[in-house]
């Protein structure tokens, strides 16, 4: 089986953004299209097929298929308890679209809801995306350790100083071996 990397690359952030945006855009377009086509009853299921021919509904279905593909891709390299909160910004996106594009009134309670969701996303986004494979493959790494620090961050100042010190030592060795006294 392929090793699953814990670091979040730019592509993985794009996949998470795709889950968020495709779900919100797909739901909005589907809702807009279904309002145009009118009510559908169980006795007239043919009207359901007519509804699919509505361009808004068709684009909405395509966007929801894109959401499902992104969601599956995200679940292939991240925990479920990471993906769900991290992609819940779609609720916030929908509320902002309703406020600024559709000019709907957003009550203070809803703004509080937006703040809570944003806080939740901030909380989970600071942690590792995958935990159980990490514990199985690298038991020496503590559970609260952020693997991104190890994988994609540039070397720290201390480590650079340490590297520089070891480089100076190796230069001294070369000078000693070649007799260079400069």
């Amino acid at each position, binding site marked *: 089986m392929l090793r699953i990397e814990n670091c979040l690359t730019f592509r993985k952030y794009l996949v998470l953004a795709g889950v968020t945006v495709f779900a919100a855009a797909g739901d909005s377009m589907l809702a807009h299209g279904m309002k145009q086509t009118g009510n559908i009853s169980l006795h007239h299921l043919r009207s359901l097929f007519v509804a699919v021919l509505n361009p808004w509904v068709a684009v909405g279905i395509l966007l929801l298929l894109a959401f499902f593909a992104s969601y599956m891709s995200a679940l*292939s390299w991240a*925990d*479920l308890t990471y993906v*769900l909160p991290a992609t*819940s910004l779609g*609720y916030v996106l929908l509320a902002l679209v309703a406020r600024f594009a559709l000019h709907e009134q957003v009550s203070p309670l809803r703004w509080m*809801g937006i703040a809570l969701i944003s806080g*939740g996303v901030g909380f989970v986004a600071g942690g590792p995306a995958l935990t159980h494979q990490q514990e199985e493959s690298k038991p020496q790494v503590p559970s609260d350790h952020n693997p991104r620090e190890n994988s994609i961050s540039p070397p720290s100042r201390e480590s650079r100083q340490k590297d520089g010190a070891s480089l100076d030592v190796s230069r001294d060795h070369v000078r000693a071996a070649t007799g260079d006294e400069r």
Partner: protein
Amino acid sequence: MKHLYTWGGILAVVGFSVLGDILMSRAMKQVGDLHALGRRFGLGTVLCRIFSNSIFFVAVGAMALAFFSLLFSLSWGDVSLVAPAAASLTFIGNAFAAKIFLHEHVDRRRWIAALLVAGGVALLAG
């Protein structure tokens, strides 16, 4: 009696949603990183691996049942109760189920995130 039907419907939505998410997560972990697989073997192999996984189809079935349960719940109860209650309880249920069945390390950070998002969704949809 109507309240009983409504809450029974909400619990069905939550149960099938959590089942679908857990099984989909399990199936995708069995398949492997889709991007890495696609780059190495091509899209056809990725699709073959996904569609040859039986858990994937059970997950899709559970998600479909969750969708139909939501439709029935909406016919019995108000949308202002059904939508936020189902979405919030699904977040909490997923955190418990992922810890128990997927053995994910749900630390304090993730519990707080799940609770904040569940509360936020309840306020937003309420």
